[in-house]
């Protein structure tokens, strides 16, 4: 398919800010890699959180894990739907010590980083457990996966910190996770 000249749209509107989606903090991995990425003292002044991720591992295969508020006990669950270009797999992890959120780009995929968007809903509400959802994946021109995940942290505590780490190896240089707050 060839693009047919249509419309140049980049100057149609001004730069309007909604003021309800705020950037809070970004962590970018430096040379030598990093075993984990943590966000501490997350403000409680938002309704929802969003983590936006560009990640690469230092090994052939690694998934992304997360724990909230320093809880290392078996208080997490997740469900996933993953596809690799030919096969679709669905599954779950029950009573786990962390939530698994998709597969990171492998070290052999030069210049390829996985993308991910993680939404954590109503993260300060003390009346319910904390639910989350992700869309993530990487493509390396012949390999890769696309993932839907849902996660549950079975705690009524507010989420004040988040610790991300790979199932094996480290985060490679230039991996990045940014935290945003969404007002309610």
């Amino acid at each position: 398919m060839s693009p047919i000249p249509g419309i140049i749209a980049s100057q149609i509107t001004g730069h309007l800010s909604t003021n309800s989606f705020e950037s809070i903090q970004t962590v970018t991995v430096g040379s030598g890699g990093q075993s984990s990425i943590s966000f501490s003292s997350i403000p409680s002044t938002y309704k929802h959180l969003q983590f936006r991720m560009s990640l690469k591992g230092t090994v052939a295969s690694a998934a992304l894990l997360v724990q909230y508020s320093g809880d290392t006990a078996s208080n997490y669950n997740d469900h996933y739907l993953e596809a690799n270009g030919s096969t679709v797999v669905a599954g779950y992890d029950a009573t786990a010590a962390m939530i698994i959120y998709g597969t990171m780009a492998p070290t052999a995929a030069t210049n390829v980083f996985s993308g991910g968007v993680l939404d954590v809903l109503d993260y300060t509400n003390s009346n319910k457990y904390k639910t989350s959802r992700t869309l993530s994946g990487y493509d390396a021109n012949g390999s890769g996966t696309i993932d839907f995940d849902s996660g549950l942290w079975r705690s009524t505590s507010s989420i004040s910190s988040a610790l991300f780490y790979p199932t094996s190896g480290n985060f490679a240089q230039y991996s990045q996770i940014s935290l945003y707050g969404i007002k309610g």
Partner: protein
Amino acid sequence: MAAGATYTPIATSSPSGLTSVTFSSIPSTYTDLILVFSGALSANDGISLRLNSTYTNNNSITSLAGNGTSAASGRGTNIYSIYLYDYVSPGTTVSNIQAHVMNYSNTTTYKTILIRDNSTNSYTEASVGLWRDTSAVNQLIFYTGGATFSAGSTVTLYGIAAA
């Protein structure tokens, strides 16, 4: 922790009767771009995305789709554009697309694009695309294979800046 408002509308278009929308001179001041489409086409056709003004068949995509009966996964390799609809053609059904172009202005990595698209009476799909070029992205071309966008169709580009 510093906090600043973001998720900023950069440009929007109502391309009724046209076959493409080009967002050019995209500022490099954001971290991610989000392209949102809501609308329909004049006939069954696909919608694709190209980044910047030059392109080769270096690109690829992996998708997961469900049609109400079954789920399937597909892959395209060495392709010229990223298929935003690559499962079935949306035709005249009102459909939607949200495409995240991650870390679009960096010059170190290829560009990963996360896509969610739905044809409201036939399927839902998620895809991940790879634009195999380390150049910063300053232009997006959103286009059909020849069908025109129906009245009421909108395409909006947002920027998200990391702290």
